[in-house]
C-alpha cells in the first residue's frame, strides 16, 4: 500500500464509516476488479449443491486460458453459453421498447469515461467474455463466454483493464510501473471451486463502475460487500444477508432489473412468482400496501417510489461517489508530465488524464417525477451546446398518471462535442499508440482517432459542453426507522421543494390566503385590544367622576 492508499483508507475508516476497515481502496485506481477479500459468497454457509466441481475430471487439467475452461464447463452445461449470449451482460446492447433507442454500453456515450469504441481492451475487463479487443469480436463463439467471472468463489480471479476481458495468465505488474504485482490466476483451482454468483462477483464490476470504487452509481459500492445494518437492511451481514441475486432474480442467466428501462411504477399484482413483472422491484416482495400500521403511507406510495423515503441518502458506506467530472481541464502537464492533485479527503481532485472531479459521501438525492421512460442523447442526437445536455433524460410528470417521485443521483460533467455537427464525440482514451489521450494528452489526436474508429464524420473542431446524467437510487435501503420522516418533506424548504405539481401540507400554501388570513386575525386582535383599551380608559374616567364600580 502506498501512502496515498493508506491515507485514503484512513480517511474513509476514521471519518465516515463504521465498517470501512475492510478493503478500502483508492478511488483513483483504474482497476475495476478488486482483490476480493471474502472467499466464499456467503461465508459460513455450507454448500448445498448436489455437485462438487472438484470431482469432475474435465476440470482437473492444466488450463492455459479462459476459453479452455469455458469449453470444459460447456461439456455439462450445454445451454449456458447460449443463455449468456442472449443477455445484456454479453451483448452490451439493449433495444429500449419504449423509445426504440439502441442503448447499451456498446452504443451510449455517457459523461464518465464516455464511450467504448477505440478503448475496447480497457473497457472489456468488465465484459462477461474473452477477447473483445476491437469491433471484430465474435459474439457467437461459445468459448468466448466467461463463466468464471460470475461463478468464481475464490476471489482470485481478476480481470484487469487492458487485457480485453482475459484474466492475467502470468504474474503482472499492475497498474503498470506501480511496483504492485497481480498474481497469475490458477484456472483449475478457480474452475473446481465454482459456485453460485455472490456479491463479490457482481461487485467486481458493478461496485467499481465509472473507473473506481463508488464512482458511478452512488448507491452501489464496495461497502455493500459486507454492509452493516445501518447501510443496507437487506444485505446486512448480521441481518438478512441478501446477495444481489436475491432481489435480481435470475432465470436462465437473464438478470431481472434494468436501468435502461426501469420499472418506475410497478403495477404488477405480484408478490413474486404469481405474475410476471420486475422481480427486482420492491413490490415484488413487499406488495403494494406494505405499511400495516400507518396505512396513510400506502397512499403516499401511489405517488412516491419506495426509494424516496427508504433510501434517505446515498453513498452512506463511507465511499465517496463522484458528483462531477469535468473533462475540459484534462491534459494539463507539469514539467511535461501528467500529475494529480488531491482533495481534502485524499481523493483525486484533478488528474491530467481525466480532468477535474468532485466527490461526496452521504449525498441527499435530487427528486423528480419519473415514469420509466429514459431518452438518451446518443451519438446521432443533435444537441444544443448552450444548454446542459441530458445524457439520459428521465421523463415524468405529476399529471401523466404513470409517474412517481424518484430519488436520483444527478451526475454532472463537461465533455467534448463536435462544434461542426453539434453531436457528442467518441474519443480515444486508452491504448499503446500515440493518439490515446491518457498517454499523450492531445485532444485533437484522441478525438480524430476515436471518430475514425466509429467511421464518423468529424469537423475537426471540438468544444466542451455541460452534461448531466441521472442515476436512479434504489440500493442502500436504510432500516425503516431511518426512512424519511413526514417533516422532511412536509416543510419549507423540504426534500421535495423542487418537485412540481403536488399540494403538500406544510410545504406550500396559498401565499395570498395566508397573508389575508393572518391579516384578518391580526386586525381582529388589534381591534378587540383597542376596543378593550377604550373601555378601560372610559371606565377610569367615569370612575373619576362617579367613584365606585359601574
Amino acid at each position: 500500500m502506498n501512502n496515498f492508499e493508506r491515507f485514503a483508507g484512513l480517511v474513509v475508516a476514521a471519518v465516515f464509516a463504521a465498517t470501512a476497515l475492510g478493503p478500502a481502496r483508492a478511488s483513483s485506481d483504474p482497476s475495476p476488479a478488486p482483490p476480493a477479500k471474502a472467499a466464499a459468497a456467503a461465508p459460513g454457509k455450507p454448500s448445498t449443491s448436489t455437485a462438487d466441481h472438484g470431482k469432475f475430471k474435465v476440470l482437473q487439467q492444466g488450463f492455459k486460458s479462459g476459453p479452455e475452461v469455458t469449453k470444459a464447463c460447456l461439456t455439462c452445461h450445454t445451454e449456458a453459453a447460449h443463455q449468456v449470449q442472449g443477455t445484456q451482460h454479453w451483448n452490451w446492447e439493449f433495444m429500449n421498447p419504449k423509445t426504440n433507442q439502441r442503448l447499451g454500453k456498446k452504443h451510449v456515450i455517457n459523461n464518465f469515461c464516455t464511450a467504448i469504441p477505440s478503448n475496447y481492451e480497457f473497457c472489456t475487463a468488465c465484459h462477461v467474455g474473452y477477447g473483445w479487443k476491437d469491433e471484430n469480436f465474435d459474439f457467437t463463439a461459445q468459448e468466448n463466454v466467461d463463466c468464471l467471472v460470475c461463478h468464481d468463489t475464490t476471489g482470485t480471479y481478476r480481470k484487469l483493464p487492458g487485457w480485453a476481458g482475459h484474466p492475467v495468465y502470468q504474474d503482472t505488474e499492475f497498474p503498470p510501473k506501480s511496483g504492485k504485482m497481480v498474481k497469475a490466476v490458477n484456472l483449475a483451482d478457480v474452475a473446481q471451486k465454482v459456485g453460485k454468483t455472490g456479491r463479490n462477483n457482481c461487485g467486481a464490476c458493478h461496485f467499481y463502475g465509472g473507473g473506481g470504487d463508488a464512482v458511478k452509481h452512488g448507491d452501489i459500492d464496495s461497502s455493500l460487500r459486507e454492509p452493516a445494518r445501518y447501510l443496507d437492511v437487506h444485505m446486512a451481514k448480521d441481518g438478512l444477508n441478501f446477495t444481489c441475486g436475491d432481489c435480481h432474480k435470475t432465470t436462465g442467466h437473464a438478470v431481472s432489473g434494468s436501468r435502461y428501462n426501469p420499472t418506475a411504477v410497478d403495477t404488477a399484482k405480484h408478490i413474486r412468482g404469481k405474475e410476471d413483472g420486475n422481480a427486482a422491484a420492491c413490490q415484488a416482495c413487499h406488495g403494494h400496501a406494505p405499511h400495516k400500521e400507518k396505512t396513510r403511507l400506502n397512499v403516499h406510495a401511489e405517488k412516491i417510489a419506495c426509494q424516496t423515503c427508504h433510501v434517505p441518502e446515498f453513498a452512506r458506506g463511507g465511499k465517496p461517489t463522484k458528483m462531477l467530472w469535468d473533462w475540459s481541464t484534462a491534459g494539463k502537464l507539469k514539467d511535461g508530465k501528467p500529475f494529480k492533485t488531491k482533495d481534502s479527503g485524499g481523493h483525486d481532485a484533478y488528474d491530467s488524464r481525466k480532468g477535474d472531479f468532485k466527490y461526496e459521501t452521504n449525498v441527499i438525492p435530487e427528486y423528480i417525477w419519473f415514469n420509466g421512460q429514459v431518452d438518451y442523447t446518443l451519438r446521432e442526437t443533435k444537441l444544443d451546446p448552450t444548454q446542459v445536455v441530458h445524457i439520459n433524460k428521465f421523463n415524468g410528470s405529476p399529471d401523466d398518471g404513470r409517474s412517481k417521485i424518484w430519488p436520483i443521483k444527478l451526475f454532472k460533467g463537461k465533455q467534448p462535442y463536435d462544434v461542426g455537427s453539434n453531436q457528442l464525440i467518441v474519443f480515444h482514451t486508452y491504448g499503446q499508440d500515440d493518439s490515446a489521450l491518457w498517454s499523450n494528452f492531445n485532444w485533437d489526436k484522441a478525438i480524430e482517432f476515436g471518430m475514425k474508429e466509429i467511421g464518423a464524420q468529424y469537423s475537426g473542431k471540438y468544444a466542451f459542453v455541460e452534461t448531466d446524467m441521472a442515476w436512479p437510487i434504489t440500493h442502500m435501503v436504510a432500516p425503516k426507522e431511518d426512512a424519511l420522516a413526514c417533516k422532511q418533506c412536509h416543510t419549507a424548504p423540504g426534500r421535495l421543494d423542487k418537485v412540481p405539481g403536488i399540494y403538500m401540507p406544510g410545504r406550500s400554501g396559498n401565499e395570498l390566503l395566508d397573508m389575508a388570513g393572518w391579516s384578518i386575525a391580526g386586525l381582529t386582535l388589534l381591534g378587540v385590544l383597542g376596543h378593550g383599551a377604550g373601555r378601560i380608559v372610559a371606565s377610569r374616567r367615569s370612575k373619576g367622576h362617579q367613584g365606585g364600580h359601574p
Partner: protein
Amino acid sequence: MLKALLGFVAGAVVVALVGWLMMPSLMFTERVSPFGMEETIARIQHNIEDNPALKAKGWALSGLRNPARAVQTDGGNVLPVMMIEVCSTKYSKPILKEDTVRFLSILMPCKVSVYKKQDGKVYIGTMNAGLMGKLFGSLVGDVMSQVAEDQKLFLVMDPSTPAPEMILPQAAPAAGGGGPGGGC
C-alpha cells in the same frame, strides 16, 4: 400598588421568556460553509495548525470526533457530523487551577462542529465563548473573550487558497501535526 407590582412581574416574565427563547441562538452560533464536509474540516484544522499567532497562544488540535459513527454501529443513520477538538493550555490552565470554576472543564476541549443538514449544505457550529464566559465571573470572562477572538481565526474560509489535506488523529504519522492529545 398591586397593579404596579403585577405589571412589574408581568414585565419580568416577558423578559425571561424572550431571554429563554433567544438563549440557544445566543449561546451557540451556526453558519453555512462554502465547502464540503472534508474540505471544511481540513480548512479549519489548518487555520489552527498553520497560524503562527495561534500556535504562539498554545492552540493545537486535540482530536477529531465522529458521533455519527456510533449511531451507525447501533444500526442507525444520521447525516455526517464531525467535531474538531482544539485546546490551548494557556487558556485552560488558569481555569483548571481555580476551584470555583474547575467544573468548566466540561467545556474542554474547545469544539468546532461540522455537519451536514437536510438541505445538503455543510454547517459549522461553535459555542459563543465570549458570552458564555461572561456568565462565570471576570477570570473566566477574560479567558473566554480571548478564546472567542481566536476562534474567529479558526473559521476563516478563503476559497482562493487550495484545499488542504484533512488531519486525522492518531496512527497517521504521514498525516503529520496535531496528534493525539495535542495541546492539552
